């Protein structure tokens, strides 16, 4: 299987969980084991959109217990019997091979997955930022052998892109250091934030310069935060920023 596999470097690895749990999109080729009408094919495939039960395949990395997975959308791109090309948008942890096998069972003729390519992992898609191993190795060569670090620098995206799908809370400079030391984010430290945040949502905590400080879980909604003057707004979960990036302004007696 090929396709979109974001790779996080060094400290950026801390955000990988947010990508693992993100929505995935695939393009797959299903091979039918017998003939079914186009009308029936479309109807049965459509019936798999929504919450489905799925038992992980024999060769899988998780416990083989029946799980509920959500299929957000299946779009038939092309039919050339016995092959059906389709785009599948689904919840993380969905086994597309199994999904196609199950579609074959319901169709009554059986089917298996012929080819699979991941076209999206959370915010990462097949766009101008996608690079092949070949391009990466060439850029590395330019850096190491030719002393030209531009190609590699252009390929590596700032870690912030890896949490770009999360709602954001932007904080004042004075609050940054405390967060990097593990403190939770209190209302007075917030400069601005996205609308529609609800308690329990995963959020990214950013500086006014756009740097990711940490990830957290919202304790208040956007409205509650706007209306409050104190209290914990976000519980800090994972600190990404280096502790010494912003000056420590807290926990000390005010000097003159």
């Amino acid at each position, binding site marked *: 299987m090929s396709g979109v596999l974001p790779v996080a*470097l060094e400290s950026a690895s801390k955000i990988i969980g947010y990508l693992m749990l993100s929505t995935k999109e695939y393009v797959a080729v299903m091979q039918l084991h017998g003939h079914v009408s186009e009308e029936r094919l479309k109807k049965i495939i459509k019936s798999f959109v929504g919450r489905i039960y799925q038992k992980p395949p024999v060769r899988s990395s998780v416990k083989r217990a029946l799980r509920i997975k959500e299929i957000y959308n299946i779009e038939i791109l092309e039919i050339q019997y016995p092959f059906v090309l389709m785009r599948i948008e689904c919840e993380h942890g969905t086994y597309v091979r199994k999904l196609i096998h199950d579609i074959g069972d319901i169709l009554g003729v059986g089917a298996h997955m012929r080819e699979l390519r991941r076209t999206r992992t959370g915010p990462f898609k097949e766009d101008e930022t996608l690079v092949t191993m070949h391009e990466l190795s060439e850029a590395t060569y330019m850096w190491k052998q030719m002393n030209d670090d531009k190609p590699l620098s252009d390929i590596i995206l700032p870690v912030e892109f890896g949490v770009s799908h999360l709602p954001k809370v932007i904080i004042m400079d004075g609050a940054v250091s405390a967060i990097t030391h593990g403190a939770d984010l209190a209302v007075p430290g917030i400069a601005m934030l996205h609308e529609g945040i609800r308690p329990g949502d995963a959020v990214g905590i950013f500086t006014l310069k756009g740097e990711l400080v940490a990830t957290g879980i919202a304790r208040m909604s956007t409205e509650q935060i706007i209306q409050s003057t104190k209290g914990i707004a976000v519980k800090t979960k994972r600190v990404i920023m280096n502790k010494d990036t912003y000056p420590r302004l807290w926990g000390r007696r005010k000097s003159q």
Partner: protein
Amino acid sequence: MSSVGEGLVERGLDFIRKLDEYAGLKRRLVLVKHEVTTNPAYGKVPSERTLNEKLRLGIINLDKPPGPTSHEVVAWIKKMLGLTKAGHGGTLVPR
């Protein structure tokens, strides 16, 4: 409004809008504070990071080739770039 760092806030917010656009996140930013500034002496807009900074706080949108496992691909990248740690987002089985 302070003049120092005001343009910097604009650049920071531009970067955040770029992130939202990248992810297709359509949400409005709501201002809580009336006056916001940031000190240019600390940190920087992420798009201005040097290569060495990116190697510590960066992410690659990799097109994994069919064949090797996600794990093998990450091990190659680690070795190639001389990293101690790297992680991938969601295993893609070899074939």
